[in-house]
């Protein structure tokens, strides 16, 4: 069932159109990730859905009803902000209870729901502390608790993990995914980190300059990117995008081949090159190879045991089954 629909929604700030008219549909219970580079409009889009910004044109439908002119609080959505936006002068308990208080829910029911949310998020011991006394991860959970307690139609997350250190980020990622499985509520999640997108999403929406480049499941985007932007954005390290005469041999303007689909050999292969910097991760090694056929170095993935030194001559061979072809406009050639 379509829970949230954006129809010809566009946004202008003054004379600048940051989001040209776009359409998007989000199914009930989906975990949708808006991803893209800085300034692509993903946060703006989220805020349009939330009602914190007005659309310049178009409609937003929630559960079939036109919500475009409805105030944020009445849309039945809950938002977790990048900076958590907790009320510093209130205890955790009161922070979580605040939306219930605003809705006029009676004290007993307020207390019950707060306890429940606290239990779900392991916050019970911190209920009487102030946000200033909590760690980053704990504050995040309070922000999520405040959202859960409203029993919203959908959760909106605005880059919630950006302010956490790397280790914490991985843990919280799992917790949020877990939460989604448990609550089965629709979640719209904004991030610039494509790893978060790949690991958490049911559906990814890739944005650039306000335009939706592609919508699809993580693996769809990984294996069949519709254009060079998506191809280069999804997947880390980046897909090698190559032009010139080699691309023309495959009747394309640009060809793409992922690091794991390139074979590397000291003896023979399609493309000759010289090993540059190598990055050893233990399980894998990524070699950056400079080939005279191409203007940029190619990234090649090899198993952790392969040993090749700086300056060594090597040959690279692409796996033809996984070669992507793009035309001169950057669009995929099937």
């Amino acid at each position, binding site marked *: 069932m379509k829970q949230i629909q954006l129809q010809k929604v566009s946004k202008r700030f003054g004379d600048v159109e940051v989001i040209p008219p776009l359409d998007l549909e989000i199914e009930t219970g989906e975990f949708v990730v808006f991803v893209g580079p800085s300034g692509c409009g993903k946060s703006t889009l989220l805020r349009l859905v939330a009602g914190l910004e007005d659309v310049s044109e178009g409609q937003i439908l929630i559960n079939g009803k036109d919500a475009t002119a409805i105030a944020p609080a009445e849309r039945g959505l809950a938002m977790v902000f990048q*900076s958590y936006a907790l009320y510093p002068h209130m205890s955790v308990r009161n922070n979580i209870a605040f939306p219930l208080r605003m*809705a006029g829910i009676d004290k007993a029911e307020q207390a019950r729901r707060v306890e429940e949310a606290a239990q779900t998020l392991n916050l019970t011991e911190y209920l009487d502390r102030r946000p200033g006394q909590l760690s980053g991860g704990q504050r995040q959970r309070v922000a999520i608790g405040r959202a859960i307690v409203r029993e919203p139609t959908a959760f909106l997350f605005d880059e919630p993990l950006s302010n956490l250190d790397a280790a914490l980020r991985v843990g919280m990622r799992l917790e949020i995914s877990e939460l989604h499985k448990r609550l089965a509520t629709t979640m719209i999640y904004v991030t610039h980190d494509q790893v978060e997108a790949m690991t958490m999403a049911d559906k990814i929406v890739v944005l650039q300059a306000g335009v939706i480049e592609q919508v699809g499941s993580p693996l769809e985007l990984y294996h069949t990117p519709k254009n060079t932007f998506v191809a280069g954005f999804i997947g880390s390290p980046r897909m090698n995008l190559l032009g010139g005469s080699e691309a023309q041999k495959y009747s394309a303007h640009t060809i793409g081949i992922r690091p794991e689909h390139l074979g590397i050999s000291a003896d023979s292969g399609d493309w000759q090159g010289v090993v540059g910097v190598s990055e050893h991760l233990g399980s894998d090694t990524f070699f950056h190879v400079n080939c005279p056929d191409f203007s940029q170095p190619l990234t090649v993935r090899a198993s952790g045991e392969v040993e090749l030194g700086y300056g060594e001559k090597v040959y690279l061979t692409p796996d033809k089954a996984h070669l992507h072809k793009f035309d001169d406009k950057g669009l995929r050639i099937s």
Partner: protein
Amino acid sequence: MARAVSNRRKMLNTALAWLVGLVIFFPILWIIVLSFKTEGDAIRTPLEVLSSVWTLESYAVVQDRSDYFKHFTNSVIIALGSTLLGILVAIPAAWSMAFVPSKRTRGILMWMLSTKMLPAVGVLYPIYLLFIELGLLDSRTGLVVVLMLINLPIIVWMLYTYFREIPAEILEAARMDGANLRSELLYVLTPMAIPGIASTILLNVILAWNEAFWTLNLTAAKAAPLTAFIASYSSPEGLFYAKLSAASVMAIMPILIMGWFSQKQLVRGLTFGAVK
């Protein structure tokens, strides 16, 4: 600079700094001393002054003249009244400029600040005339209004800077949580802004208490605050150093104490953000 410095260097700095500090503070110190002396002793040489009898008689004399407390009360009412009135007008304005800025916000703010730079003497007569027409001459109400107007730019400015330090996301979260404007201001903004509002009140009460142009020209016997009361000592009869000292000490003490706590606010309020 927080490096370990030789103790000798630190002692030198300390001695020099304290010397300078005491020299600067000396006039205030001296009138505190004189206020506890008799009139006869107050005019003697410094050493004789220090060694003479300490007494509270000058304080008693000043307080006996009932008009001292009347003037003190006037100062309090005028300073507090104008500041609180200003706060009432300024909070909505600062809110709107800080949280819903438009293209004109910067211009409006700068214009407001520029009204503070209007030389009072340039509008002295019209205001004087208006006051006579409206029966506001020598009235506390009139002075409350004028001082509110001359400090309003600073009050708006300071509240604006304090509000801007409140993350907009927290107010958005409140909105998402269902708070209407009233709830947002009451339960979220004001509690978070209380330190800023208090600081603003502090600095502006000080500025209003010390204002010495309108308070001297628009008041006579009834509404004159302490600034004018002290000014009346400029052509006194007989010996008056001790009384003037006592009156002065009483007039400046509250503000000195408040001032010691408001240094940061001073920089924020009077440099208009040009110095951080």
